[in-house]
């Protein structure tokens, strides 16, 4: 085999699948969002649907709701996850049961995670029952509903619960293999422990933390199950809104669904680009 072609040949099967399904799906969504859907006789390419969607109050509310959910849950999960990883590395038992147990939520699907949080936070859940038995509330109705609520507490909690172990696992692996001498040098030179963490360990961990943040942010921004199961009827999260438009029996509504899912895609990509840009600046500055 021609050695120049070999790397491409090895990549080919995977790339064909990605082109044939992923790229084709994305392009098809783009074309349909521009109003081309010949099955129901829509053949004119137009930006009309985009303009209409952007004028729609429901859409704008959903967009902010989705951004708020993903940002809040990802930031919280990253902070708690990193701290937990740091604490586990500092505690001496490295092969203990806790290093296995905390990983459990990783194999729990999001749908089940939603059920777990429902069992805890709903008005008949465990948390209000505990409050009642402690005498903090006297009646079920005194516990403000934390699922199906407009603040998305149930959704955010579910994502935090699910993503903490992921962040912890990724950061733990890197932290454990980190060059310990660097930290010791800092401590020898008179840095306090927290300073060692903030100024030595954290910068070295930043790339890992950053990519973990991107993955969980993008996932929660585009995921359907959790807001579908625990979200309020209004505002709906963006993926739920897209799906509602998609299942509209009037097929001439299809382009609206595609516009919403294209905006989901575009926002994710823009945020990732902004993030990498910011990150590069930060790196240059540190150097």
């Amino acid at each position: 085999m021609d050695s120049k072609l070999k790397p491409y040949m090895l990549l080919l099967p995977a790339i064909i699948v990605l082109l044939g399904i992923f790229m084709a799906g994305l392009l098809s969504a783009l074309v349909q969002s521009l109003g081309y859907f010949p099955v129901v006789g829509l053949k004119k390419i137009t930006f009309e649907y985009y303009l209409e969607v952007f004028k729609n109050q429901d859409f704008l509310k959903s967009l902010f709701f989705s951004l708020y959910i993903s940002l809040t849950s990802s930031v919280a999960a990253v902070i708690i996850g990193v701290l937990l990883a740091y604490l586990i590395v500092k505690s001496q038992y490295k092969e203990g049961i806790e290093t296995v147990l905390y990983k459990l939520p990783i194999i729990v699907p999001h749908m089940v995670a939603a059920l777990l949080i429902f069992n805890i936070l709903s008005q008949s859940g465990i948390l209000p029952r505990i409050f009642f038995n402690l005498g903090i509330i006297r009646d079920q109705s005194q516990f403000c509903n934390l699922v199906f609520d407009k603040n998305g507490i149930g959704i955010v909690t579910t994502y935090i619960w699910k993503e903490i172990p992921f962040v912890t696992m990724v950061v733990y692996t890197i932290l454990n293999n980190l060059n310990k001498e660097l930290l010791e040098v800092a401590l020898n030179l008179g840095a306090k422990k927290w300073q060692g963490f903030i100024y030595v360990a954290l910068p070295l961990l930043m790339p890992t933390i950053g990519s973990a943040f991107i993955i969980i942010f993008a996932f929660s921004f585009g995921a359907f199950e959790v807001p579908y199961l625990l979200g309020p009827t209004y505002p709906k999260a963006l993926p739920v809104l897209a799906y509602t438009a998609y299942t509209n029996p009037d097929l001439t509504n299809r382009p609206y669904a595609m516009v919403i899912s294209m905006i989901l895609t575009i926002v994710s990509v823009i945020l990732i680009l902004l993030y990498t840009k910011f990150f590069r600046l930060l790196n240059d500055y540190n150097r």
Partner: protein
Amino acid sequence: MKVLQKNTIYLNIIIYSVIILLIFPLAVMFMWSFARSWPWPYLLPQDFGLRGWKYFFNPTSKALFTLFLSVLLSLIVTIVTLVLSIPAAKSLAFYNFRGKAFFEIFILAPLIVPPIAVAMGIHVQFIKLGLADSFLGVVLVHLIPSLPYGIRILTNVFQAIGEKIELQARVLGANWWQAFIFVTLPLIAPGLVSVGSLIFIISFSQYFLTFLIGGGQVVTFPMLLLPYIQSGDRMMAGVFSSVFVLTALLFFIIVEKTIKSHYSSREYFYF
């Protein structure tokens, strides 16, 4: 010395409280699956029963059959993903070529682009090709969230091993498939197994892609489970969720045991 011990105690208290917070909801769910009656405001079920579990194991409910079908589907997705990922990962790990950076980003793109956009877009084409509402169609669409993980992690595995051992086999006269089967494959096997279990879980947990492309004709386990969660039937949802988590856990344990029996030395573990 005493200060140090006190610190360790605080440290452990924090670690264990976080871990308990993470585990506690799972315990509550498991308890619900055995609850015959658990009214407000009791902290424990007032009466226990096996109605949900009996329903699950009853052949007429088809729950066990669906579970079996789901496991089969996810196994197929896992194998196809690995077969596609091994050459791709090798290419990215060992070769420098034009457009490499582009391919690396392109392969990770499905992690960033919401699957809902891809699935809704491809649905029309799948209907035209007869792939919608079919097992094959669902397998194909499950490849999209799986491939980025498969290729990315296997690239790291290949980089960790290096190319030299395989090249040595080639120099000593092995042809490419002998070198692959007898040298490379045993070397990457532990990595392959851990990526495999990750992909299995990804595919096993899919709801939206299966639901949209399968069109209700391909019924997987998450599709049986969702209506129970949605209707707030905590006992039945508890049973089905417990089965879900236990199946995934069992899969992990079996996989872990298999690697350990083959590779007693820990240096083979990359993750």
